[in-house]
């Protein structure tokens, strides 16, 4: 549905987006991750046609979005960052306006507005003016605007920003539900959101795509992925570490906590064995030495760790 090729945007000498390419198909939810100022919003603004790229190609639903912007824009629902809205309009007035610009008239417009109000739980504030709304409602009003024409493509810039936990949950469910038959791109800072909602993740840093894959694939890139988490009672920590050194496929072990004769440690894989093989070997060793194992499991790998490893500036990495 969306295909972006070698997209570049320069603001003066600064490259905000640098040679970004990706595609999103129907049924996919693509999460844009990245530190602030990485170029997420700029990329979305180019895809939605708000700002023209310096170079590159954008195809939306088969239309060249730069040569033929109107049919491309018709297919997109867009929720800009900070969810703007006309302060002096009522919610229903605003939605009617959006529906009219989307070419909906008469009965069709009425139905579309009603549907959007229901979908975003706006029944209580329909006749309230937008500047009197709480942040959550304001956000949902703008979200309703983006859904009003039931677009095949949704682009959302931080759709859960400023919402309370319940609202975040609702919006995530909404995205997930709609993701079944739409192509969705959304940006976020919240990593758990990515795991909960996305079928694919792109991490952008300083204008470049630095990672592109499913959440599982990215998690597997974590140093922690495949590590063994172990809790043993009644054995000194030094003896444990000594013993673990002999396990084939273990790079090193790290003591996480030590209290009342219970030691908690993590054994990192050296990457030679298959996933889970290290856990089996550690368990075998424990059985052989008759350690009292209270807990043992394989770590999944954590997205925040991967995110930090990829996006931290090199200078900070060197210092750490």
């Amino acid at each position, binding site marked *: 549905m969306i295909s972006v090729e070698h997209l570049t945007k320069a603001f003066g000498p600064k490259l905000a987006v640098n040679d970004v390419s990706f595609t999103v198909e129907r049924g996919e939810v693509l999460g844009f991750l990245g530190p602030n100022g990485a170029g997420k919003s700029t990329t979305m603004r180019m895809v*939605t046609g708000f700002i023209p790229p310096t170079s590159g190609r954008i195809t939306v639903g088969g239309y060249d979005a730069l040569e033929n912007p109107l049919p491309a824009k018709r297919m997109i629902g867009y929720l800009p960052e900070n969810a703007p809205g006309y302060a002096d309009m009522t919610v229903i007035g605003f939605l009617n306006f959006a529906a009219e610009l989307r070419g909906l008239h008469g009965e069709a417009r009425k139905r579309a507005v009603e549907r959007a109000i229901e979908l975003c739980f706006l029944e209580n504030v329909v006749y309230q003016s937008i500047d009197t709304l709480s942040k959550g409602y304001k956000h949902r009003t703008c979200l309703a605007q983006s859904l009003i024409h039931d677009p095949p493509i949704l682009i959302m810039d931080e759709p859960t920003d400023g919402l309370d936990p319940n609202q975040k949950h609702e919006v995530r469910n909404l995205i997930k539900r709609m993701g079944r038959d739409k192509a969705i791109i959304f940006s976020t800072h919240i990593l758990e959101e990515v795991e909960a909602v996305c079928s694919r993740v792109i991490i952008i840093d300083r204008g470049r795509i630095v990672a592109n894959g499913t959440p599982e694939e990215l998690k597997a890139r974590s140093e922690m992925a495949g590590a063994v988490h172990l809790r043993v009672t009644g054995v000194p920590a030094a003896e444990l570490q000594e013993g673990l050194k002999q396990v084939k496929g273990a790079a090193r072990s790290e003591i996480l906590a030590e209290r009342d004769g219970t030691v908690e440690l993590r054994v990192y894989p050296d990457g030679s064995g298959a996933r889970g093989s290290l856990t089996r070997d550690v368990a075998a060793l424990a059985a052989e030495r008759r350690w009292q194992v209270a807990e043992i499991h394989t770590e999944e790998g954590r997205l925040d760790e991967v995110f930090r490893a990829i996006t931290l500036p090199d200078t900070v990495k060197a210092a750490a």
Partner: protein
Amino acid sequence: MNAWHNIRAIMKRELGGYFTSPIAYVFLVIFLLLTGFFTFTVGSFFERGEASLVSFFTWHPWLYLFLVPAVGMRLWAEERRLGTMELLLTMPITTWQAIIGKFLASWLFLALALALTFPVVITVNYLGDPDNGVIVAGYVGSLLLAGTYLAISCMTSALTRNQVISFIVSVVIALFLILAGYPPVTDLLTRWANPVIVQIIAAFSVMTHFEGFQRGVVDTRDLVFFASVMGFALFTTGVIIRNQRAG
């Protein structure tokens, strides 16, 4: 057909925006009070002893100088401040439709304000026997004058997210367009400059072109002048918006 639907939707929203906030009412009241004051007190409507609206129309360039930028300053500055510009320009409409829709809405509002001065027409018709053709021409000229200032405010409004700056810049430009052809200024200029040059400068002034309408003369040259200033200012608005988006 589609374009017209979009323009109409934008006009409707923009006009609604005037009337849901106090701006419209404050503006209408002030406009009507000031036109009344200038016509009857400063313009000596009664003392003239003429059945004409000269004392009414003479003041319009000066009144509009401040009042029209007050109407136009929010057009784009507000969109930028609220961030709704991003919403508006990612809708399936062209930038031109948005510019024209906003401009027409404000112009329509100014036309409404002007139409509400109808009691002065009734008064002059009751008191005497004026040439109503001249009055109609005066109204047409006044409306074109308002549209010209408005197009300029539209342009300055696109330049900034600050309405005050937008207001001041458009007042300055409008003031130049008045003074370039204002008799006291042109008289002063002829002392130093070649009369031909003074005439050329005066040709850029709204005063020179508004004057004909007040006398009841609808000259094509004047129509072309107002239309071209409006066209130029709106075109520049489009260029400014495009450049801002390009970053």
